[in-house]
Structure formats: structure tokens, C-alpha cells
């Protein structure tokens, strides 16, 4: 018999975090063991970032009329029906299932029945999964404070808008831009920013990083670039990293977040360790300034490497 936890389930967790936790446990009691492992030993900084993530989720939930329990149900669907089958394939075969963007587009991006719960579930995972929340925390509490005030900021592939929200909250930029190749994603990010009352702060536009226009209009333009959970979706990650190098101002830095051993239905590019991620970044003419690695909840980095478990690899780099 698993008891529903009190809102004060872990010391220091805020009310929005507690609400997300309780929503998930209410629709998926068996998941509480994972959640406890995922929250064990979270630092005050990480709990604070977790609360910012959970609070954004709560605001998007209210604005969209979709309950937290509904997000929690999507999260359960993400874990059980979307990620676990890919984990099973990865454990059996030692590789990701798909290899081309066209396959991922057909199975995921152009399939609303998959894409909706997938994106909602990932939003919840940013608060609940230790590795996801830790990467967000690295961005908010380590990267952003070191970025010089008044810079030009770009995010490529802003997803559900979480890192833009953190950039607005913890950064001090002169301008913020966000590019995506998906019209649906552009609309989604704009609606999240509208919910936050921040629509006029970020230039969100349809732009393909690989296009000539992206380079000719923006060479050397950006002081900070965010490239989070995009690399693994690409057939040619090398070209994307080289393009990012060319978009950086001479003293600019890029914050990259990429999973190692993180199977998902739309992941094509498999990295097996943080070292492989660093090598890929260096090969694109970038110099690593700082690196951090966050293993999946309940695993040490050493165990995650030995057992090929998911690791969020965070890299800050500049032009070499």
C-alpha cells in the first residue's frame, strides 16, 4: 500500500513542486519510488529551479485549461508507452531505433497523437527527472550568472519554452531570439510566452539553422546560444555545431545539453558518454569552457557509464 505523500514530502520543495509530485502519484502510485530517488539529495539551488519549472507548468496548465492530473497522465504515457519501449530496444540492440529525420518526422513530429503527450510529458520530466532538472539548474544557476549583461541571446529549438523562461528570469540580455523549424513549435512557444506576459521580450521565428539565411543574417551575432536536447535529433549534428560556431560572437558561448544513452522515438544521434559529447563539440571547432554530467536518478556517473544509463551532458563552449 503506497500512501499519498504530504505536500511537504521533501524538505525545501515548494508548493508547485509538491502539486506536480502529488498529481503524478495520484495517477501513477507505483512511480513514487522513482520520484523519491530522483529527489534524494537535491540541493536548495536545484529545488529552487525545480520549483520555477513546476510553477511554469502550473501556469501553462491554468492558461490552457488542461489540469495538472492530465499533464501527469501524459507523463505516465511518456514513460510507459513512449520511452520504455525505446529503452528496451536500446538495452537489447545497443543502438537507437531510428536513424533518419524522415522516420522521426513520420512517427513523432507529424503525429499529433504521439507529439502531444510526448511534449507534455517531457515538460513534467524537467521537474521530476534528476538529470533533466539538474541540466535546467546548471543553465539557470551556473551558466546565466556568468553571461555578461546586455548580450544577444539565441535559443535554437526552444521546445516548450522552459529555457527561455529561465533566461528571462535569471538572465539580463539586451535581446532574446528563438528559432525553430516547426511552425507548431513556434506557435507553442509564443503561447507560453503570452501566458507569462513576455511576448514582446523574445523574437520567436521560423528559422532553419542549416539555411543560408540563418548564417548570412547572423554570422558572429550572438553572445549566448542555447542548444538543448536538439543535437540527438539530427542526422548531421556535426554541421549544426559548426553552424553554431559561426553564429557566435568572438567572445560568445554556447550552452549545449545533450543526452548520452537516452533512447527516445525521435533520437537519432547516439552518444555513449560525456567524453563523446565533448569530442563532437571540439571537432566542430569549438573549445570546451566547462562540462558537467548528470546521470539518471538513482545512478552514480560511474554506474551510468558502465550500465549505459541516461546521462544529461552539459557543455559550455566558445569558438576555438
Amino acid at each position, binding site marked *: 500500500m503506497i500512501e499519498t505523500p504530504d505536500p511537504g514530502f521533501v524538505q525545501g520543495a515548494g508548493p508547485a513542486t509538491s502539486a506536480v509530485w502529488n498529481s503524478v502519484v495520484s495517477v501513477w502510485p507505483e*512511480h513514487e519510488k522513482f520520484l523519491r*530517488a530522483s529527489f534524494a539529495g537535491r540541493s536548495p539551488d536545484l529545488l529552487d529551479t525545480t520549483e520555477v519549472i513546476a510553477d511554469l507548468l502550473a501556469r501553462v496548465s491554468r492558461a490552457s485549461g488542461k489540469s495538472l492530473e492530465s499533464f501527469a497522465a501524459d507523463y505516465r504515457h511518456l*514513460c510507459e508507452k513512449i520511452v520504455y519501449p525505446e*529503452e*528496451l530496444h536500446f538495452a*537489447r540492440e545497443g543502438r537507437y531505433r531510428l536513424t533518419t529525420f524522415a522516420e522521426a518526422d513520420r512517427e513523432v513530429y507529424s503525429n499529433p497523437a504521439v507529439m502531444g503527450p510526448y511534449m507534455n510529458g517531457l515538460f513534467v520530466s524537467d521537474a521530476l527527472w534528476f538529470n533533466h532538472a539538474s541540466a535546467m539548474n546548471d543553465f539557470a544557476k551556473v551558466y546565466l550568472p556568468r553571461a555578461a549583461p546586455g548580450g544577444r541571446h539565441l535559443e535554437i529549438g526552444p521546445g516548450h519554452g522552459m529555457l527561455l523562461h529561465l533566461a528571462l528570469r535569471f538572465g539580463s540580455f539586451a535581446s532574446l531570439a528563438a528559432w525553430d523549424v516547426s511552425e507548431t513549435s513556434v506557435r507553442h512557444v509564443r503561447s507560453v510566452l503570452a501566458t507569462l506576459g513576455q511576448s514582446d521580450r523574445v523574437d520567436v521565428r521560423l528559422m532553419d539553422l542549416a539555411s543560408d539565411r540563418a548564417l548570412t543574417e547572423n554570422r558572429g551575432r550572438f553572445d549566448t546560444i542555447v542548444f538543448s536536447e536538439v543535437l540527438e535529433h539530427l542526422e548531421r549534428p556535426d554541421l549544426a555545431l559548426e553552424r553554431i560556431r559561426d553564429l557566435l560572437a568572438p567572445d560568445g558561448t554556447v550552452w549545449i545539453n545533450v543526452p548520452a544513452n537516452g533512447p527516445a522515438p525521435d533520437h537519432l544521434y547516439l552518444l555513449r558518454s560525456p567524453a563523446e559529447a565533448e569530442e563532437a563539440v571540439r571537432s566542430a571547432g569549438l573549445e570546451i569552457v566547462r562540462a558537467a554530467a548528470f546521470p539518471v536518478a*538513482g545512478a552514480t556517473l560511474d554506474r551510468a557509464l558502465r550500465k549505459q544509463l541516461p546521462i544529461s551532458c552539459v557543455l559550455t563552449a566558445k569558438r576555438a
Partner: protein
Amino acid sequence: MSREVILGDIREIMADVFDMDVDDVVVTPDTTADDIEEWDSLSHIRLIVAVERRFKVKFTNAEIERLRRVGDLVALVEAKQPA
């Protein structure tokens, strides 16, 4: 292969997958994930695949989802052994 032998082999696999000393893995047919801290949803998948490799069997997604007790796993392996 008897159930006792299968159970013994699964115990060794569990020690490897969960990164535990084999002497610390106390397993009975009634053991579930609730009894072993390291047995979570991800390590469950690794356990299943390690058992598949050891016994040269393959489980369906439905079979994997139904597995709760170690005894269920033993019975499934036994059922898939050649006659």
C-alpha cells in the same frame, strides 16, 4: 532446467544489473521491486534483457509489463525453455 537453477541464475544476474554483491541479493519467488532499492523501472528493463540473453529467450512487451514477482520471471523463463 529446474526452477531452483533458474532462480539461482536470476539472482546472479540481479546482482550484476543492480550493482550489488551477490551475497546481499536475497531473492525468493515472492521478491518484488519493492524489496530491492536498486530495482527501478530502468534497471527492470536491463534485468529483463540480461535474463533474455542468459536463457536465450525473448519476452513480449505484454509479458514484461505483467512481471511483478521474481517467481513470475522464473515461470516465464521455464515456460520458454525447449521441451
